[in-house]
């Protein structure tokens, strides 16, 4: 239910929890499309500072004009993060060359271990082309907060630590507007539907775009 809770936190208007649950279940952000259609809204990435996997300051402005899929993780995540990457790989096969118009961005939640070099090595073996970002803990926390991403370092006996984290993919349209989210438990048809909507320039905008 934390998904719903986090969505509640994002909303500016009080909405009944039951109605909200239905809205989330139906993947319907459509009710917000009209009021969110303000071209003056700042980009979902404005004011963020991170380093890319080549060790350079990442130019978030370069994302403008392209549909973007952002997700958070860490390279020492052996189970969930590869699963997300492989699913994107399957969808790339299914959607075809058009898929590559989507800029895929992976934000590390483990800057201590994920140096630009580690990220670069990790991204090279993936089934889709991904830009890895890392940075200071404060800058990463700011990026995570922007997308309402939960993250917490957990000590593991016999292994340094792992990071619990929100495992959703966040979709941002070519105008920098939040336009959907794919949770880790989504099935392939939902992945495909939402990625195709992103490619087509979805009007199902996230309520945060009202800011």
């Amino acid at each position, binding site marked *: 239910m934390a998904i719903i809770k*986090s969505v509640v936190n994002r909303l500016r208007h009080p909405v009944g929890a039951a109605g909200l649950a239905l809205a989330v279940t139906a993947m319907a952000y459509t009710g917000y499309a009209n009021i969110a259609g303000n071209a003056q809204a700042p980009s979902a990435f404005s004011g963020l500072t991170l380093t890319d996997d080549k060790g350079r300051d990442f130019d978030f402005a370069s994302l403008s004009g392209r549909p973007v899929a952002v997700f958070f993780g860490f*390279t*020492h995540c052996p189970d969930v993060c*590869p699963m997300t990457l492989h699913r994107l*790989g399957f969808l790339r096969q299914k959607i075809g060359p058009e898929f590559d118009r989507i800029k895929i961005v992976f934000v590390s939640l483990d800057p201590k271990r994920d140096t630009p070099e580690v990220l670069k090595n990790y991204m090279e073996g993936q089934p889709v082309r991904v830009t890895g970002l890392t940075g200071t803990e404060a800058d990463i926390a700011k990026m995570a907060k922007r997308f309402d991403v939960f993250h917490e370092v957990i000590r593991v006996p016999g*292994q340094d630590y792992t990071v619990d*984290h*929100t495992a959703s993919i966040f979709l941002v349209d070519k105008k920098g507007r939040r336009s959907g989210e794919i949770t880790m438990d989504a099935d*392939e048809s939902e992945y495909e539907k939402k990625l195709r909507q992103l490619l087509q320039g979805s009007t199902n905008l996230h309520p945060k775009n009202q800011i």
Partner: protein
Amino acid sequence: MFLKNAAIGLLLVGGVVSVPQIVRSDSASLQVKDAWANPTASGQSVAAGYFVVHNRTNRAEVLRGASSPAAQNLQFHTSSLVGGVARMRKVERFNIPAGGQLKLAPGGNHLMLIGVKQQFKVGETVPVTLHFNSGASVKVKLEIKNADKSSSSNGGHHGHH
């Protein structure tokens, strides 16, 4: 017997064509199939392994540990998704009911190889020995490959397309 089990294995993976692992087993009644692991990046020190254990005995069995020359420390872990947040926790053992099976798959239960000594590359295999409470041990080879479409544990990607 092996062919029959292979056929069952194929059914279990939802019709996806795969070559069953040739299992060298010290115990004829505990069978491990579809053993694999993701490739690792250069410098990556952890990897996850997956397999299915079939307990064809009439006694409940417990998978209590694993060892491998390819990693310093092997543990069992489980991933869960609660409210969109993925959490991974250590698990001491897995119970396998008599006549039942244990499935380790992405997004759920998995073998954690910690302190991986060499990069896992697609096409290679990694030897692992599984240790059971009854004293049985089963040697398996994890095939290094990228995930099959059907391999996640959450049911969302069990392809019948």
